[in-house]
């Protein structure tokens, strides 16, 4: 089927106006959705049972704000624990020592395999299992012991629960990031005489960051909302503060809206931050200083009529 196509001379395609394809289906779908959303929003505003005046009244309530603060620091602290722990576990998992890889896999299996809610309640009740916590060597000398009931406060239980659980998830993210860096990078760095630490810190991790950061941003935003789980162990974070208020005044919906507004505000801030951090680590990808792209073909010299 090799046939030479001869354009008739009158068909000067280059001079014809172009009519873009019109996507009617998309326009209809968009219009329908706009109407539905508009209806929902109007109903939320006009339905008096949403009680927006109560929402406004409690938005900057002192207890809500202190709950908000607790949510913020809990999120950051748990995430920090998760990242440090996750990096450690990931390094253990890629190590050549079988014992280390097995321990890391076991950790992942345990903390990813049980519900976070269960882990939180478990840590909170740890003192029932170990009334006295002793630090020392197994069967060896003890370095000191303390009262579990006083040590495992709600804060410690919340941090342990969220941080250890997050460590498991972060280790998978860090590991996939480390694996995304080609082996040639490590070899080139080692061939230059860099120490293992330096290779990791200067060559591997910065490149792995581009793979690690987007899902870590998701984890962080997820963590922000997951902290609401610690309300079950009566830690006064944002949701629990709202709950305390609505159990007293029965304004359940308005107070849940108050909490949601704050959660939304925080996730918005985090998303914006994520955008800038990703842009920073993607620096070498932007071709701003690149040699110019191939020139656009000059239409007057196109070979179409040949």
């Amino acid at each position: 089927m090799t046939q030479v196509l001869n354009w008739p001379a009158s068909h000067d395609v280059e001079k014809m106006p172009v009519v873009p394809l019109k996507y009617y289906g998309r326009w209809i779908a968009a219009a329908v959705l706009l109407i539905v959303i508009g209806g929902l929003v109007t109903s939320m505003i006009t339905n008096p049972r949403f009680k927006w005046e109560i929402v406004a009244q409690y938005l900057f309530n002192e207890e809500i704000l202190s709950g908000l603060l607790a949510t913020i620091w809990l999120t950051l602290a748990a995430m920090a624990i998760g990242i440090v722990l996750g990096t450690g576990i990931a390094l253990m998992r890629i190590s050549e020592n079988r014992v280390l890889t097995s321990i890391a896999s076991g950790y992942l299996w345990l903390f990813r395999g049980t519900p976070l809610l269960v882990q939180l309640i478990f840590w909170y009740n740890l003192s029932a299992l170990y009334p006295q916590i002793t630090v020392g060597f197994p069967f060896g000398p003890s370095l000191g012991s303390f009262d579990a009931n006083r040590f495992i406060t709600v804060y410690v239980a919340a941090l342990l629960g969220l941080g250890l659980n997050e460590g498991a998830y972060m280790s998978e993210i860090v590991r996939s990031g480390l694996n995304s860096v080609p082996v040639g990078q490590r070899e080139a760095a080692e061939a230059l005489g860099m120490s293992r630490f330096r290779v990791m810190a200067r060559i591997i991790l910065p490149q792995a960051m581009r793979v690690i950061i987007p899902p870590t941003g998701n984890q962080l935003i997820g963590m922000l909302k997951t902290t609401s789980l610690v309300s079950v162990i009566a830690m006064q974070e944002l949701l629990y503060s709202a709950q305390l208020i609505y159990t007293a005044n029965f304004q359940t919906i308005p107070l849940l809206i108050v909490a949601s507004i704050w959660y939304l505000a925080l996730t918005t801030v985090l998303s914006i931050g994520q955008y800038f951090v990703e842009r920073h680590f993607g620096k070498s990808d932007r071709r701003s200083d690149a040699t110019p792209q191939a020139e656009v073909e000059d239409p007057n010299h196109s070979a179409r009529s040949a």
Partner: protein
Amino acid sequence: MLSSQSGAPGSQEFAVIARGVEKSFGALKVLQGVDLTVGYGKVACILGPSGSGKSTFLRCMNHLERIDKGFLHVGGKLVGYREHAGKLYEMRPNEVARQRADIGMVFQSFNLFPHMTVLQNIIEAPIGVKKLSKAEAIEDARRLLAKVGLTDKADAYPRTLSGGQQQRVAIARALAMRPKLMLFDEPTSALDPELVGEVLTVMRDLAAEGMTMIVVTHELGFAREVGDMVVFMDGGVVVEQGSPSELFTNTKTGRAKAFLSKVL
């Protein structure tokens, strides 16, 4: 086991001395007793068919691979082992790193650090490993960039460069450590034909300055012109070696003949 002798006769005078070097990957025995001696200031070109163990041998020289058996001296030192009281102790990672700092390596796939600019690629190891001051390292780097003809690319990121330019940066990066020996593993094999020349020119200049070089290559013209010796490897051993004129015009072994007739 490694042979216990380490102070081989004249080990200080030669850049590389290999005796009976063996290396296996699992059941696959890739190096089956490689013998090679390369003097300082010499350029040795290693030829041979694919899978003959050329890259593996080169990588053994800076301990990217660990040898199973035999004896390998580079720059007057046993690679990867320290002799003490009649025993050979495997080196710690930081000792290996120190040993590697004197050996430059250039890879087929360039392996520039993509998150760093050309200049940062070059000064990273001199600052981090040799503890040069930043100003000193930058001055060095600019001199090396001029030498490889890339003065204007100091602030470019590697992915914006052509393959030939990337490989020249990789050479400059290795030279920045002021190595006593340069290893090249098929430095032009990943390049478009019209870019091969610019890399070979840089290597030719380097050889003219007296750099000791071991070059795995398929560029017979380069081997003939620049090489002080040509080494033909096949099946994990050195089958034949000699001066280029000797080896190319008066090939002795059948295996080398067969290979050369295919690539010429």
